[in-house]
């Protein structure tokens, strides 16, 4: 039990710490790297909660794909820190407004927590994963059974977003020549080279 306890406090404190440093770090690349550490610790907490499938997905999707793209973009940004600081005074009122709203939400959240949990049903253990069924099977049965249509709808929305992103950024370029691999492979020596014997001063047409 002690090992789990130590692991929980390690992951939890590191998650909070790296989350804080993410917004405090001056260099955006450092911010992304701290964010990745936060994702990691969140995954560690998921493992401790017995949701190892979610933990692995968190690492694969967020750390392995999303954060790499973040890093990719942020690395190529040419950030002028002086210019960023110049906008500080101008944007301060908007920032303060957002801070006030967030603080208000935090207060409401604490109030709701103190008022007691929502009554969603009695915890009789009927919703728990039965023993012997693995995490993946339990989630799969729910996603492809009870919530099939919602799951499919989420997939369709993602597909639309993906196509939209491609359509928005795609442009047809006529000035570049692409490579047609199958045409190159199909070429034979006898059709690729022609033996010519041009008259003097005539030249050949290509």
């Amino acid at each position, binding site marked *: *039990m002690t090992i789990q306890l130590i692991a929980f406090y390690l992951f939890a404190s590191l998650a909070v710490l790296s989350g804080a440093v993410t917004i405090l770090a001056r260099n955006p690349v450092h911010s992304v*790297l701290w964010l990745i550490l936060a994702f990691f610790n969140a995954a560690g907490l998921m493992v401790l909660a017995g949701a190892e499938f979610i933990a*692995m*997905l968190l690492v*694969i999707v967020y*750390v*392995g794909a999303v954060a*790499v793209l973040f890093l990719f973009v942020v*690395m*190529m940004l040419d950030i002028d820190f002086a210019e960023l600081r110049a906008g500080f005074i101008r944007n301060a009122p908007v920032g303060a407004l957002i801070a006030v709203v967030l603080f208000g939400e935090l207060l409401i959240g604490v109030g709701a927590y103190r008022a007691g949990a929502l009554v969603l049903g009695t915890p009789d253990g009927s919703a728990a994963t039965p023993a012997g069924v693995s995490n993946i099977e339990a989630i799969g049965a729910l996603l492809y059974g009870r919530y099939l249509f919602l799951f499919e709808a989420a997939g369709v929305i993602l597909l639309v977003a993906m196509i939209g992103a491609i359509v928005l950024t795609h442009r047809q370029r006529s000035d570049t020549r692409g490579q047609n691999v199958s045409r190159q492979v199909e070429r034979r020596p006898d059709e690729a080279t022609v033996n010519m014997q041009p008259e003097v001063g005539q030249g050949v047409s290509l």
Partner: protein
Amino acid sequence: MTDFFQSLGLSYDWAWSLATIAGILLIALPLMLGVAMIIYADRKIWAAMALRRGPNVVGPWGLLQSFADGLKVFLQETIIPSAANKGLFLIAPIITFTVALLAWAVIPFNSGAILADINVGLLYVLAISSLGVYGTVIAGWSSNSKYPFFSAMRASAQMISYEVSIGFILICVVLWAGSFNLKDIVEAQQSHVWIINGFVANPLLFPMWVMFLISGMAETGRAPFDLTEAESELVAGYQTEYSSMSFALYWLGEYANVLLMCALNATLFWGGYLPPLDIPVLYLIPGVVWLLLKILFFFFIFSWVKATVPRYRYDQLMRLGWKVFLPVSLFWVFLVSGYLMLTGHFA
């Protein structure tokens, strides 16, 4: 192993901790020794294919060459470029090296010999292998130098591209085995076709193995996909500014990653620790030996390809990943699941 430590009179917590540490050392130390020897083997194979002798001075047949190189690198000065981002510059090789060792935790060496027998073993391998890109990208950025940066850009694009098709290939295997646990996947391959142990004998999965082998080469940045360190264009890629031990860590990590890919090939498609044929006599040889033989066989293929195939051009690499492997592997997921559905495999 926990039982053994418990039999010595330790409480479960302590026995578990000691057993885990012992298991980590039992994997990591032979792996490091193996990496040293496999670098020597790689150079020897490469030399033989180019009709050269290869390393043959240090020790008998040059066997101690890697250790001499290691010692040399250890004694060199670590140079940190003045414009580099110091912290990240030093962390990057450590990330590469650590990640290369992490994934070995779930590889089954024998039916009982597995450090972490987890249900999501294959997903864990995917998660860890997707981290490999950070060592390269951070190195490229923190070096604050042109060529490493280009290399980092290439590396991140390349690794993301091939991970997608590797994911779909693995789904085919998982569908057939019915589990993400690597041990269960190995057990599912027992006399898969007639008396042959291994998914590779299955005509539906054989093309997936070929694609997995090629994607593995791209994922580990080995020739012919070693665009991240293409010396004719990028000097030495992301390693350009590295010297001494930080350079050696990349070296070791790269080869540990290659060995891991070989081990995954063996485990997922060639029956892992099972003998190639399901004949009782062959089970007398321990599973570790079979797995090692398979790993060495795949490493020979990797070396062979490195010695004989010219480097891909960058746009060809991207084309192969996105326009060939991705559609084919996606189609194969439909094919395999459709076949398994029709034959009532899931019933």
